[in-house]
C-alpha cells in the first residue's frame, strides 16, 4: 500500500471515529442535558439515566480512540490541536469528568440534595462538552492561526469567535434533539409523552440554528478550500433535519431518530470533506496548514496501525452492537425494574 493511500485511509478512519462519537455520544450528551428538566421525580431521573446507563461509557471511548488514533497516525495534528486548544480542551475534560463520575455516583446515596447535585453536574458536564466540541470543530472548519513551525499562535479567545460559538451552540441543540429522540425510543408512559412534546419545540430552534450555521459556512466560503467539494451532502443533511421535523410531529419516533442521526453523520462528512486534505487550516498562511501529508506518521507506523485497526474495529462494532440489542427494551419508571 502506498504512503499516500495510507494517509488517506487514516484520515477516513479518524473521520469514522469522530462520526461514531458524535452519533453515539451525541444522544448521551443530549439525554444528560435534558435530565434535570425532564425528570421530575427520582425514579424518572433514574429511568432517564438508565436509557444510556449501559452504553455511555463505551460510547465515550470513541472519543478516546479518535484521540489515540490521531496521536498514532497524525502526531503533528494531535500535538498542534491539543496544545493549541489547551484551555478549551481542559474545560472539555472537566465537563467529561463531571458527567462521568455523576452517572456512577448519583444513586449511591439517598440524600435528595446529593442526587440533585449530581444530576445537574451531568447536565452541565454534557452541555460544556457538547459546546466545546462543537466550537472546536467549527474553528477547525474556519481555520486557526498556525505558524511555520506548526504551532498554534492564538489563545482561548481566538476560538471564541462568532462562527465558533455558533458551531458550539448548534451542536448543543442538535445533541439535545438527538437525545430527545433517543429518549422517545427508550422511555414509556408519561415520560415518553413529555419528551415527545419537548422534541417538537426543540426541533424548531435547532433547525433555525442549523440553517444559520449552514448559511454562515456558505457565505464565508469554507466549502471551497479543500480538494473535495462536499456537493449534495450538506443539502442532504439539511433535508434530513427537515424530514425529522415531519416525523417528530407525526410521533414516528424511530424515523425521527434516524433522521437526526443521519443529519449528524452527514454534517460530519461535510466537515471532513471540506477540510481534506488539510487537517488544520492555517489562517496565518495557507501554506502553513497541517495536511495529511505533513502531519502524518511514517509509512511503517501507518501500515502497522492499519492492520490493528482493520482487525479490531469490526470486533468492537460487533460487541457494541450486541449490547444495544441486549438492552433494546424500553425503560419504565417502575421502581422494581430499575437498576441503580
Amino acid at each position: 500500500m502506498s504512503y499516500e493511500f495510507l494517509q488517506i485511509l487514516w484520515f477516513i478512519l479518524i473521520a469514522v471515529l469522530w462520526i461514531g462519537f458524535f452519533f453515539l455520544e451525541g444522544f448521551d450528551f443530549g439525554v444528560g442535558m435534558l435530565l434535570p428538566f425532564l425528570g421530575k421525580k427520582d425514579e424518572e431521573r433514574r429511568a432517564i439515566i438508565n436509557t444510556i446507563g449501559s452504553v455511555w461509557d463505551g460510547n465515550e471511548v470513541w472519543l478516546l480512540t479518535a484521540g489515540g488514533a490521531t496521536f498514532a497516525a497524525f502526531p503533528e495534528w494531535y500535538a498542534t490541536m491539543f496544545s493549541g486548544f489547551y484551555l478549551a480542551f481542559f474545560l472539555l475534560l472537566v465537563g467529561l469528568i463531571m458527567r462521568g463520575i455523576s452517572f456512577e455516583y448519583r444513586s449511591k446515596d439517598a440524600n435528595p440534595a446529593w442526587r440533585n447535585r449530581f444530576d445537574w453536574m451531568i447536565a452541565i458536564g454534557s452541555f460544556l462538552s457538547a459546546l466545546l466540541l462543537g466550537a472546536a470543530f467549527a474553528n477547525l472548519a474556519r481555520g486557526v492561526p498556525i505558524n511555520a513551525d506548526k504551532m498554534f499562535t492564538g489563545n482561548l479567545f481566538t476560538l471564541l469567535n462568532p462562527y465558533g460559538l455558533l458551531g458550539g451552540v448548534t451542536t448543543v441543540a442538535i445533541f439535545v434533539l438527538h437525545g430527545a429522540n433517543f429518549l422517545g425510543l427508550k422511555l414509556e408512559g408519561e415520560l415518553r409523552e413529555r419528551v415527545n412534546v419537548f422534541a417538537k419545540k426543540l426541533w424548531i430552534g435547532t433547525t433555525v440554528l442549523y440553517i444559520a450555521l449552514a448559511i454562515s459556512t456558505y457565505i464565508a466560503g469554507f466549502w471551497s478550500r479543500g480538494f473535495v467539494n462536499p456537493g449534495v451532502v450538506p443539502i442532504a443533511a439539511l433535508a434530513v433535519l427537515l424530514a425529522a421535523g415531519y416525523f417528530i410531529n407525526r410521533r414516528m419516533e424511530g424515523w425521527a431518530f434516524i433522521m437526526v442521526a443521519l443529519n449528524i453523520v452527514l454534517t460530519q462528512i461535510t466537515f471532513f470533506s471540506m477540510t481534506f486534505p488539510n487537517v488544520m487550516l492555517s489562517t496565518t498562511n495557507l501554506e502553513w496548514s497541517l495536511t495529511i501529508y505533513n502531519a502524518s506518521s511514517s509509512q511503517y507506523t501507518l501500515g502497522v496501525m492499519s492492520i490493528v485497526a482493520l482487525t479490531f474495529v469490526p470486533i468492537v462494532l460487533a460487541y457494541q452492537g450486541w449490547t444495544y440489542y441486549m438492552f433494546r427494551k424500553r425503560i419504565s419508571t417502575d421502581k422494581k425494574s430499575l437498576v441503580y
Partner: protein
Amino acid sequence: MDLITLSRLQFGLTTVYHWLFVPLTLGLGWFVAYFQTRYYQTKDETWHKMAKFWGKLFLINFAIGVVTGIVQEFQFGMNWSEYSRYVGDIFGAPLAIEALMAFFLESTFLGVWIFGEGKIPEKAHLASIWMVAIGSNLSAIWILLANGWMQNPVGYAINESAGRAEMVDFFAIVSNPKAWIFVWHTLADGLAMAAFLILAVSAYHLVRKQNLDFFKCSFQIGAVMGLIASALVFLGGHTMGQFMYESQPMKMAALEAVWKTEEPASFSLLTIGDLTGRQEVWSIRIPYVMSFLACNNFTCEVKGVNELQAQYEQQYGHGNYVPLMVITYWTFRIMMGFGFIMMGAAVWFLYATRRPDYENAKWLKLVPFGALFLPYLANASGWILTEMGRQPWIVFGLLKVQDAVSPNLTTVDLLISLIGYTVVYSSLAVAMVYLMKKYAIAGPDATMHESVDVAPALVGSQD
C-alpha cells in the same frame, strides 16, 4: 514557577492520582470475576454476596479511574506537544491500540455487567465481568509498553530530515523486556492492592464480629492472594533491578545514593548526603547486598553517580544527568520497605488465621489501617521513583523533559489548569472516600439492594 516545572508538576499530580485508583481496578476485577464464577458454579448465596459486595467497591473505585483516565489520553498533546511530535510515530501506536483493544472492551462490558443482572442470560453476565477484568489489564499492558519504551527505547530510528524518531520494528516495541518486567510488577501490584483492600475491610468487620462467615472467607482469600501477589511483585522488582543495572545505571546509582563506583557494592540502610547532594557525609551500609540486587551475585561492580555523570557528559554533552537523589533514594526505600512488610504480614495472616477464633485477636485491629495505607504509599513511591529516576530524560537517552513541553502555553494557562485539576480531583477524592467508606462499612447485606440507604427519598417529592 516556570512552564517546565508547572507542566511536570501537573503531569505528576494527575498521573499519580490516576494511578492511585487503577491498580485496585486491575486487581479487584479478577477477584469479583472469580467470586461470580464460583456463584455461577455452586449457586451458593455467599458467593453471590461476595461478588455484589466487592463488586460495589470495585465500581466506586473504577469510576474515578475512568474519568481521570480521559485526561491521560490527551495531556501528551496538550502539555507535551514537542514530545508528541518527536516520538508520536512510536508512542502514539500503543495508546491507540490501548483504546481500540482495551478501553472499548472494559467500558462496554462494564455497562453490560452493571445493568445486565437478571436482564441478560446469566452466562453473558458472567462473561461480561471477565471482559472487564481482561480489558482493564490489557489496557495496563499497552500503557506499560508505552512507558517501557520511554525507559528503554527500542525498535526506532532517527529520521534526520523529519526531525523525529520513527518506528522501524513494532515487534521490538511490543516485546521490550523492560516493559514486560513492568507489566509483571504492575499487574501483580494490582492484585496485591486488591488483596489488601479485602483484608482491610474484612478485618474491620471481623473485629466488630459482623458477618463472620462472609468476612472470614474473604480474609482467607485476601491473605492467600496477598502473599502470592506481593511475592510476585517482589520477584518482578528484583528482576527489574538487574535490568536497570544494564539499561539505566544512573537510576540504579541514584536510588542507592552510590556516589563512587563500588565493587562489590553495599546496600545503604541510611545515607546522609551533603548540601550539594553530590557527596556522602555518613551512612550505614550492609556489604554485598547492593551487588545482589543489581546483578544477582554478591561481587559485581555498581557504578557511582559521579562516574556516570562524567560518562554522560561525554556522550550527550554538557548538563546535569543526576536525578533528584533525595527522591529516588527515599521512594525506593518506602516502596521496598512497605513491600516487605506486606509480604511479611500476608505470611502472618496465613499463619494466624489457622486459629478458628482469630476474630478476637488483637493484631486484627491494626489490619484496617496498615493494609489500606501501605500498598498505596508503596505503589505511588514506586512510580515516582521510576519516573523521577529517569530525569532529565523524558525518553531515556533520546529526548530531555525540557525539550518536550508545549512551547505555546503560558504559565497562566498552566496555573488555570493545575488549580482546576486540583480542585476537581480533590472533590472526586472526597466523594469517593465517602462512598467507599459507606459501602464498606454497610456490609454485604446492604449492598444486595439498589443503594445502601434504605428507601431513597424523591427528588422534588413535593409534586
